[in-house]
């Protein structure tokens, strides 16, 4: 017995249960409500200003493909007056990006948006394949994530964008809240649910218009609107910490979908006690990128690769390491040699 679409005056049969609110809707109403939910998020937070040049971080995957499409639709429908451009990063994983970049190329043509591709090799001197060959598969996701984050910011800045938008969805943000909680990273816990970060001057603001949009709804939206996207299991992913959080969130979602929005709500509402010391954001002394340390995370990781100190920037505990220590003191405390150029390493 078909269930009717819950939209008033719609006579179609429902074919989708929206994760967002559990309502039963037909494909047409699903699409409309999906888009208007994103519009509501954008307008309620005054996310964009008229005339802004907005770079869309595009991986060719489902989230960024749907984001690019919805941004294009809403920019036209609600006359945001934005200049939209696509920005892709090539990590240099053989066989991984080749096909996904083809998918981004298709977005470029179908959505008529200009596209720029930047590579890790260009930006950092190392491709992901070269990094994995050097360090193995244990911490490679740390490198990939840190490098990708900066690459998008730098690329967007280079293209003269005033804002960067990424396809992070509600599931992603719930995972991040959980991960920051599990790691005791209160600074990130406090800001990871913000719809826009870096808008306090100094760096390029980055925004997440899909922050309240469920992954299931994104996949359904792509299906009913026949948006083709690229997918693969990242060949280096099985060891990543995020997968454990992801698994847990997915299991919670099956029992109670709202759990995802509630985790985000917890993240949004949390306030860190004032006696808790938070890192003060400054600038990296080497590249000028925003950083709480003397060297930003990416520069620290590159330093480790170039000098063969492969745990630099990776160690879990807050430690003080001499940059080119004499090696006499294995505890990592000052060895008393003349090199006083110390680098603090905190896991991100």
């Amino acid at each position, binding site marked *: 017995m078909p*269930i009717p679409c819950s939209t008033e005056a719609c006579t179609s049969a*429902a*074919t*989708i*249960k929206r994760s967002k609110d559990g309502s*039963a809707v037909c494909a047409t109403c699903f699409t409309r409500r999906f888009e208007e939910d994103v519009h509501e998020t954008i307008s309620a937070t005054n996310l964009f200003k008229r005339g802004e040049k907005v770079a869309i971080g595009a*991986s*060719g*995957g*489902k*989230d*960024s*493909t749907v984001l690019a499409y919805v941004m294009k639709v809403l920019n036209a429908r609600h006359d945001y007056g934005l200049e939209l451009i696509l920005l892709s990063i090539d990590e240099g994983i053989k066989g991984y990006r080749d096909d*996904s970049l083809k*998918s981004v190329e298709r977005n470029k043509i179908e959505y008529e948006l200009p596209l720029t591709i930047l590579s890790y090799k260009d930006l950092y001197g190392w491709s992901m394949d070269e990094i994995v060959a050097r360090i193995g598969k244990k911490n490679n996701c740390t490198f990939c994530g840190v490098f990708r984050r900066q690459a998008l910011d730098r690329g967007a800045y280079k293209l003269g964008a005033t804002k960067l938008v990424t396809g992070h969805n509600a599931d992603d943000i719930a995972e991040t809240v959980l991960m920051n909680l599990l790691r005791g990273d209160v600074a990130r816990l406090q800001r990871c649910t913000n719809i826009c970060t870096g808008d306090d001057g100094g760096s390029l603001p980055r925004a997440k218009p899909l922050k309240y949009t469920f*992954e*299931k709804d994104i*996949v*359904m939206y792509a*299906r009913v609107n026949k948006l083709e*996207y*690229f*997918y*693969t*299991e*990242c060949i280096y*992913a099985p060891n990543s910490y995020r997968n454990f959080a992801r698994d847990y969130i*997915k*299991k919670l*979602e*099956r029992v109670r979908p709202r759990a995802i929005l509630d985790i985000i709500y917890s993240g949004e509402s949390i306030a860190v006690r004032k006696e808790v010391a938070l890192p003060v954001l400054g600038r990296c002394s080497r590249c000028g990128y925003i950083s709480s340390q003397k060297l930003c995370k990416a520069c620290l990781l590159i330093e480790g690769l170039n000098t063969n100190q492969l745990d630099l920037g990776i160690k879990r505990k807050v430690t003080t390491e001499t940059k080119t220590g004499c090696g006499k003191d294995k505890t990592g405390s000052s060895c008393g040699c003349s090199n006083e150029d110390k680098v603090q390493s905190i896991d991100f």
Partner: protein
Amino acid sequence: MPTSLTLEFSGGSEFLVGNQKEHKVSLPIDQPTVSQLIQWIKKEILTDHNRDDLFVMDDSVRPGVLVLVNECDWELLERNETILKDGDVVTFISTLHGG
């Protein structure tokens, strides 16, 4: 009486069934449930048994795999207990594969 079904795998789930998106199959069960279909898939057409758990978990699909029966979200039907009829199209979309 056996039941003829068209199975569609996408979103990355096709990698687990010989990288083939569409499978026309005949189940030796009269009016099977989705749960019975999933067990049958696990036994008969999942080719990569090291990664079975990317598709099946307990008596259902792994959370994060979406199921449609004749283009209708199984969450609007009876999920695992949905009864399948001859000629039905069942779609599995993985959301677990990255982009």
